[in-house]
């Protein structure tokens, strides 16, 4: 039933369970005890029934003795069952916690080249819903698979002991039940897969439309969305009806097989009782009652196991999807004995750097450039020219294909990422704030900053005023992705973050694009002060910023086509000169 890939994942799950060996052993022991308990009880009931023969012929002495015995068995069984459940819960939820944390840690280490190409929704759904399904499957597996298998084996053994002929009848009929269950399971697997696929489609659609509801409403596109949604919904409904109905056939079918088994037991039991001399077996009405009780419960574990098998298959599929993320190669590790960059001068050098995102689409080729300590480097060019790529390389979000980038003469591949990145202050056009208080967001780069330092930084970035206007000032909670803040306010907070840490090198990617020019002008002064003595890379549209730069890198189609300062480039009369003239012709 299981494919090799499934077996591999299963092995992996077992490995994951290693840390819980003791609990597992305890769980199995408790399962053994409770199964044994629940199997013994019917035998004693049968024995009691044999003592109730007829009017005036009841063995009360023995009955009372057996009653107390049964009562204690029941108590032990119930307690063991509960403990087993609690332990199974503990194992499952802890394993799931481990997996979640492992996945999350992995996300922190995945190369950006992976994250940039994968949809966020997909990764979220893997690490949240898939893990959840995995948990459900695992829990069911534990609670029902063990006890199910044990019950089947135990029942068979006890039946054999009580009356091997009837047991044989049962054994012969059992495969029917298994066959039916398996037949249905294979049929439904494909149906479930189809359902899951449509569900994915629906989620993606909802994610897109709800995520951009403002645009949807502005364009009055709600009705079209409803049509599209209904269309997907309709398909989803059909698919899930099929998968749910066919999978729910398992239960009645096996129950029918059970009814046949039950009748067969009754028949063969009655015959052996009517013709006691036909077979050399000691058998009684109480024994028959016990066997019937077994036959009644016997297929239950089969039902459960077939249910568990579907669940487990689903769980394995989900686990597989999570492991796919966990197994993605991480960002290359820091070299052994990698340097820790401390208070660098800030000399940055590109030395015949080659880079491209996809191997067959060339981008940066043989790029050479040297930024001296404290220089301001402006990066200019039309959209999509590769400005962001340079930042990706500087910060080591991506590694160069060939050549090297050096900071203070050290190849950045030989510096720890952490120390490299913490020496850069970065403000991106795409502002990002985490859900948390304003203070927490500002203090991101320096969690130990005092309130005074934070306020000073906010004043420098001109964000103090609007922060104070918010309901709880610096302790105002900002919701997911900045919530109600305007784009400009978000950007000011991002700048405040940098003002607080003041690292020796700066990267400003359109850092002020959403801020009004008056505020910007004031910030520029603060920026100018900040940039003094700090090597700064600035991506900007505004010429005022560009003109003051020591070096302007003019980029086009991924390559630096001109470099120099403003006057030099104007004199040259090239691409930059054109750009400059076109922008200020109006």
């Amino acid at each position, binding site marked *: 039933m299981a494919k090799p890939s499934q077996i591999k994942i299963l092995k992996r799950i077992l490995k994951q369970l290693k840390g819980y060996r003791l609990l597992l052993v305890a769980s199995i022991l408790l399962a053994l005890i409770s199964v044994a308990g629940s199997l013994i009880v019917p035998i004693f009931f049968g024995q009691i029934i044999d003592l109730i023969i007829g009017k005036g012929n009841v063995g009360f002495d023995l009955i009372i003795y057996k009653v107390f015995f049964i009562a204690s068995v029941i108590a032990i069984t119930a307690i063991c069952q509960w403990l087993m459940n609690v332990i199974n819960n503990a194992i499952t939820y802890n394993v799931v*916690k481990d997996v979640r944390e492992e996945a999350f840690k992995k996300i*922190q280490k995945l190369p950006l080249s992976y994250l940039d190409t994968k949809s966020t929704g997909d990764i979220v759904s893997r690490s949240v819903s898939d893990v959840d399904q995995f948990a459900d499957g695992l829990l069911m597996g534990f609670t029902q698979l063990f006890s199910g298998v044990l019950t089947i084996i135990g029942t068979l053994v006890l039946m054999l002991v009580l009356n091997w002929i009837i047991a044989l009848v049962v054994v012969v009929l059992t495969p029917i039940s298994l066959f039916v269950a398996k037949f249905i399971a294979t049929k439904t697997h494909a149906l479930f897969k189809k359902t899951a696929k449509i569900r994915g489609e629906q989620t993606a659609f909802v994610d897109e439309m709800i995520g951009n509801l403002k645009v949807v409403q502005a364009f009055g596109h709600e009705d079209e969305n409803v049509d599209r949604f209904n269309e997907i919904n309709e398909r989803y409904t059909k698919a899930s*009806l099929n998968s749910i109905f066919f999978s729910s056939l398992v239960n009645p079918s096996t129950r029918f097989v059970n009814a046949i088994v039950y009748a*067969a037991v009754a028949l063969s039991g009655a015959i052996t009782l009517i013709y006691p001399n036909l077979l050399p077996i000691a058998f009684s009405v109480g024994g028959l009652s016990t066997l019937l009780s077994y036959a009644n419960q016997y297929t239950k574990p089969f039902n459960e196991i077939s249910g568990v098998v579907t669940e487990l298959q689903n769980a394995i599929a989900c686990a597989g999807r999570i492991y796919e993320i966990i197994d993605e190669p991480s960002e290359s590790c820091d070299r052994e004995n990698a340097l820790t960059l401390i208070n660098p001068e800030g000399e940055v050098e590109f030395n015949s750097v080659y880079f491209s995102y996809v191997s067959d689409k060339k981008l940066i080729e043989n790029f050479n450039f040297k930024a001296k300590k404290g220089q301001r480097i402006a990066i200019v060019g039309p959209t999509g020219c590769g400005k962001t790529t340079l930042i990706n390389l500087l910060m080591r979000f991506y590694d160069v294909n060939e050549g090297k980038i050096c900071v203070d003469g050290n190849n950045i591949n030989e510096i720890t990422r952490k120390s490299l*990145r913490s020496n850069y202050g970065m403000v991106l056009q795409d502002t990002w704030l985490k859900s948390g208080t304003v203070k927490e967001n500002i203090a991101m*780069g320096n969690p130990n900053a005092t309130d005074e330092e934070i306020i000073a930084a906010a004043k420098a970035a001109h964000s103090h005023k609007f922060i104070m206007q918010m309901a709880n000032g610096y302790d105002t909670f900002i919701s997911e992705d900045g919530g109600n803040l305007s784009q400009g306010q978000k950007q000011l907070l991002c700048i405040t973050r940098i003002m607080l840490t003041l690292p020796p090198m700066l990267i400003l990617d359109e850092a002020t694009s959403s801020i009004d020019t008056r505020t910007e002008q004031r910030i520029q002064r603060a920026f100018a002060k900040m940039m003094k003595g700090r090597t700064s890379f600035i991506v900007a549209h505004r010429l005022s910023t560009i003109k003051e730069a020591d070096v302007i890198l003019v980029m086009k189609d991924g390559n630096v086509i001109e470099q120099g300062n403003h006057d030099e480039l104007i004199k040259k009369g090239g691409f930059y000169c054109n750009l400059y003239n076109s922008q200020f012709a109006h």
Partner: protein
Amino acid sequence: MMSLFKYLKAYKLQAILAPLFKLLEAVFELFVPLVVASIIDDGINGGQGVSYVIWACVVLIVLGIIGLISAVSAQYFAAKAAVGFSKELRRDLFNKIQTFSYSQIDEMGTSSLITRMNSDVNQIQSGVNLILRLLMRSPFIVFGAMIMAFVVNVTAGSVIAITIAILSVVVFTIMITTIPLYKKVQNNLDNVTLSTRENLNGVRVIRAFCQEEQEIKNYENRVDNLTKSQKFVGGISSLMNPLTYAIINVAIIVLIYVGAIKVDVGVLKQGEVIALYNYASQILVELIKFANLIIIINKSFACGGRLKEILDTKPSLKSGDYVKNITHDYINFNDVSVKYSETADFALSNVTFSVKKGETVGIIGGTGSGKTTLINLLGHFYDVNLGEVLIDGVNVNAIGDEILREKFGIVPQKAVLFKGTIRDNLKWGKADATDEEIMSAVKIAQAEDVIKNKTNGLDEMVEEGGKNFSGGQKQRLTIARALVKKPEILIFDDSASALDYATDANLRIALKDLSYNPTVFIVSQRTSSIMHADKIIVLNEGHVVGIGNHSELLNNCEIYKEIYNSQFETGVA
């Protein structure tokens, strides 16, 4: 949760048939112990012989076949009803969410809305399915077995009746304690989702600030909370099975003992005691199923509550009475003030101005000065707290939102495209737009080269979120999207910021020549984008500090002058 059952209405027939067939199945199951009792008392002990036993066994199998047919029908109807139920529920949820105002979406959080539409609805679906299948069957078997036991013997019947009473108390106590706990688990799960999403979206910043360790710690805290709440509620729920098991078996002991006494005095026969025992076992099997059902219903209830939160959210926008005021202007803002929440400061205070049809209006002001708020009032995306906004003399809250927004072509601040072809995206404004209409809009939006550079032209696929387009390309396409509509009112919400100056300028020139002569609002930080407007409104911290054209404002508006100088002194020089 109960009110959600209205979604079963369209599936009334199935919802009735499913439990009905389940009952049928149960009825036949209840005959089984009686047949077995007669095998023992009449066939074996009574000497009726093998042929009688064989007949009895045939009856058992026939009962099984009827049971099978009823069960399969029940399963079908239940699945049909459950799936239909969740279909309608999902549709209503989606419709509802689409009517949410901006602030409501922010409040609930996109990720939470998505989980709710997904896993919560699925949870409820399986809940409904099981309820239809088992909720009637289990109690029926339980009570049926009780009645059968009464038929066999009154004392034995009362033993079972008392047991059922005790069991109900246990089951309901567990249920009531766990419902709120399950809700808490779901909320903790929401937090975990949030963490994951946030970390993916902010990966660059987190890495730039070396916050990975800190984020992992935060995440571990959240997962810890989740795990703790799961274990806690799991521990309580798992009491259900062992408790029912213990109670039922104790009841069997009592039953058999009572039976023994009755047999001793000759009221009962041995086979009848076995029948009583079998009825008790049936109750046990059914109750274990029922207990599991209760756990699932429990979860469904918790999910149902979360969904009801969405469905019960009242649209926050108010609507007013239709009154036509006499005005010579096209758009009037009369002393308008707005704040986003009760406690917040006014985002706009006492804004008054008017616009004539076909005019171009520039809106300029600092970060947080209320520019976007002002624009959002035009399309009634927010309600005003004081004053009124009129279009053609009618208060915007009196025009149906759909009719009102039909007039607008909006280019939002953040350029968003949707999955589909470029053509699909551009048709958002006008569903039946021809390729000519689309291309002419594209041309005005300066986006011709975007289309030309794509191998498939208008048929080029746009990935989710427009990932495969650059910021500037997306911006121009969103402008084209607004233009395809040929709107009466065209709004640029600071949307030219990703365009270079040259494109921006060409766009403005092209807009001037539009044949349908729309009223245009341009929100911008750049004076160059708005200086040619007929009317410029200067905002500062929510107040209008100047209205007029460029040269007027340069003369009489200090703030405008400051803005202008900040851009042109150092800029052009």
